[in-house]
């Protein structure tokens, strides 16, 4: 049995770790690319959302490496993602791939069923203690990954060479992927911290009093905000434009709430979002629609300069969120931009919109600094 799984940003590091510590053969599919998307789009229903298309592409590419079992999480909706496993199984079967699809969820609410599925994946040799230990370690790694990501978010606008920061990010990810001890994980995070600090000290002496960077909060559908390929590298792009980015959902926060059912909060808990969203949307709408609204409110209250919402075309929960967000924009006078991505999204188009958006955010700030202007003229919502 060779297990594979769909990509979602850095999730592969965590999933690979989990299976490797259980001595299960795991195939990490090639990273998301144009090819992946093309392969997946051919098989997918045309109006399916982008993640499904990328998932299918991942499976096809993993099949070339000999994978025969797919692991995916589920859920009982009402977001479409909950039904991915079954639809993907049928599509792959028709296309001639004999994949076994294991959906990690309690089937019809039965925990025994879930245990059976985990047992099927882990094989007979692993004891439950070992499985739990492996899960805990993978979780720790996901928290560490999120810390590194957050550090990089802060470093991008502040360090002088964008390429250097990206290189640092890559090697940090590599370090985290390879290490199999808790100490190694901690060391990797510390190493990133130290390196950034050193670089910054070198910089500060050179150009003192550099501007405080703009802060933009990214909210939206989890796959598109976690996966740089589907969002056309929006975080990196914004970093290069001198913006500090934060996002509503981090991998470990999702793992904590979705898989551990809130036993572990993750690096950034998503628990507070429903409370923030309440005045605008008092009921969950599936997926992360409620979290999107809540996070937008939270970012606005924390004084962020702007908010960007990203979601795949036809995403149901995010459409609901998108129709509520104008109210948030009006209430808090914060510009919110919505980006919708699908298989036709082009890099240049997104880049242009981001540049224009950042210009828009920067202008009132520059004006305020230089001369006293008619304040409010440039404010949003009149």
């Amino acid at each position, binding site marked *: 049995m060779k297990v594979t799984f769909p990509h979602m940003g850095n999730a592969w590091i965590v999933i690979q770790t989990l299976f490797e510590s259980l001595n299960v053969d795991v195939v990490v599919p090639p990273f998301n690319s144009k090819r992946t998307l093309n392969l997946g789009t051919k098989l997918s229903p045309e*109006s399916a959302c982008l993640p499904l298309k990328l998932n299918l592409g991942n499976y096809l590419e993993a099949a070339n490496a000999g994978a025969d079992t797919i692991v995916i999480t589920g859920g*009982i909706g009402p977001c479409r993602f909950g039904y991915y496993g079954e639809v993907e199984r049928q599509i792959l079967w028709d296309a001639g791939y004999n994949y076994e699809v294991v959906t990690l969820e309690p089937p019809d609410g039965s925990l025994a069923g879930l245990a059976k599925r985990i047992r099927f994946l882990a094989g007979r040799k692993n004891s439950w203690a070992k499985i739990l230990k492996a899960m805990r370690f993978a979780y720790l790694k996901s928290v560490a990954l999120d810390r590194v990501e957050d550090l990089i978010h802060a470093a991008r606008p502040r360090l002088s060479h964008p390429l250097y920061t990206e290189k640092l990010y890559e090697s940090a990810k590599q370090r985290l992927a390879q290490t199999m001890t808790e100490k190694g994980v901690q060391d990797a995070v510390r190493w990133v911290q130290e390196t950034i600090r050193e670089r910054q000290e070198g910089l500060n002496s050179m150009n003192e009093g550099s501007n405080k960077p703009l802060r933009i909060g990214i909210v939206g559908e989890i796959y598109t905000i976690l996966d740089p390929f589907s969002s056309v590298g929006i975080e990196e792009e914004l970093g290069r434009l001198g913006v500090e980015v934060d996002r509503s959902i981090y991998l470990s926060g999702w793992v904590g709430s979705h898989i551990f059912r809130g036993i572990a909060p993750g690096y950034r808990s998503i628990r507070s979002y429903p409370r923030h969203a309440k005045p605008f949307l008092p009921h969950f*709408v599936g997926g992360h629609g409620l979290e999107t609204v809540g996070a937008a409110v939270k970012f606005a209250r924390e004084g962020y300069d702007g908010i960007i919402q990203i979601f795949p075309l036809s995403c149901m929960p995010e459409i609901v969120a998108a*129709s509520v967000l104008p109210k948030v924009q009006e209430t808090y006078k914060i510009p919110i931009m919505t980006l919708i991505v699908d298989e036709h999204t082009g890099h240049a188009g997104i880049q242009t919109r981001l540049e224009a958006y950042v210009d828009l955010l920067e202008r009132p700030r520059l004006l305020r600094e230089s001369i006293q202007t008619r304040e409010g003229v440039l404010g949003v919502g009149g």
Partner: protein
Amino acid sequence: MRIGFPRALYYFDHFPFWAGFFHSLGIELVTSPATHRQIMEQGLKKASDETCLPLKLLAGHIQALKDVDWIFLPRIVSVETDTYTCPKFLGIPESLLTAVPQGMPVLTVTMNWRMGRRQVLKDLEGLGLKLGKGSPDVRMAFNEGIEWQKRYQDTMGAGWNFEDGIREIERAAKDLRESDKVPTPVTWKEQMFAKMSSTALKPTDELPIVDQNEDRLRIALVGHSYLIHESYANLNLLRKLREKAKVDLVQNVNQEEVETNLSGLRKKLFWSHSKQIFGAGNKFAEDQRVDGIIYLTCFGCGTDSMVQELVSRRAREQHKPYMVVTLDEHSGEAGLVTRLEAFLDMIERRRGHEGYVSTYGECLDRDSNAL
């Protein structure tokens, strides 16, 4: 007190319940007129661009409600255990507040049958409180609503016509004021049931009766109730189809039959409409008497993007002619008619030539070679 009920989305499934509920409370329920061009245009202006046609229509109907004290926009989370409705239903009314005319109060209630009857009743009591009704009244109204809904659903046989059925309900709901004035020996309810059963027994309606002609094609129309019965948005597809063929609808398939036809899925579908669509679609695909299946969907429908795929697979396995019609606000009638005619012609020809079908698609999937 007059409460406005937009003729869109949940109207097509749950109107009888609400009609019964408010009738029992002695509140007049006003529905918006049938969709026409202006309603659609108003809806397009006010609803968010990304959302689907039915929601845009709902936005239009909200604006078409005149002279009412409240606009009623319930949040229908779930209509049975283990399923949800579409996420966009869950976002009502917040996502449509932009369409509500300024100053018009919105009345809402959360209906979540997943949590059980007790919770639903509790939420309805909250609604009653807002309307100044006590909980015994609400309980009675609730039972009344359930009964109306059940009666309505029981009439949904093969020869059933949505418009006739719903018209009876609307008439019964409107009878309120008249029955107040003149206490008639026959209660509104008996009137309604009498009318409904008579329509159900009647061999279907005014349509040209060619039923004796056994050669008539039999086409199954599969899709959401709010598309199939929304005759303005679907360009009268149902009537056009009925002129040429016998039509089976998903809505005519009863719950038990749906349940027995859910086989072949490793995971239960968790959307109530989709479950019905898939179960009925599966039944139609296997039914040898059905000549073809038309799947009616709208652009951007999330649940259909998945379920359409599943149903099309079933149809292909059974070598059943299958066509998908996707609606949006730009649908043109000529295009639809052309496709419909071509589809029906193809089926007729297939009948004549039996197995001699075009070889196209032979290698599309595993089953095609087994013809």
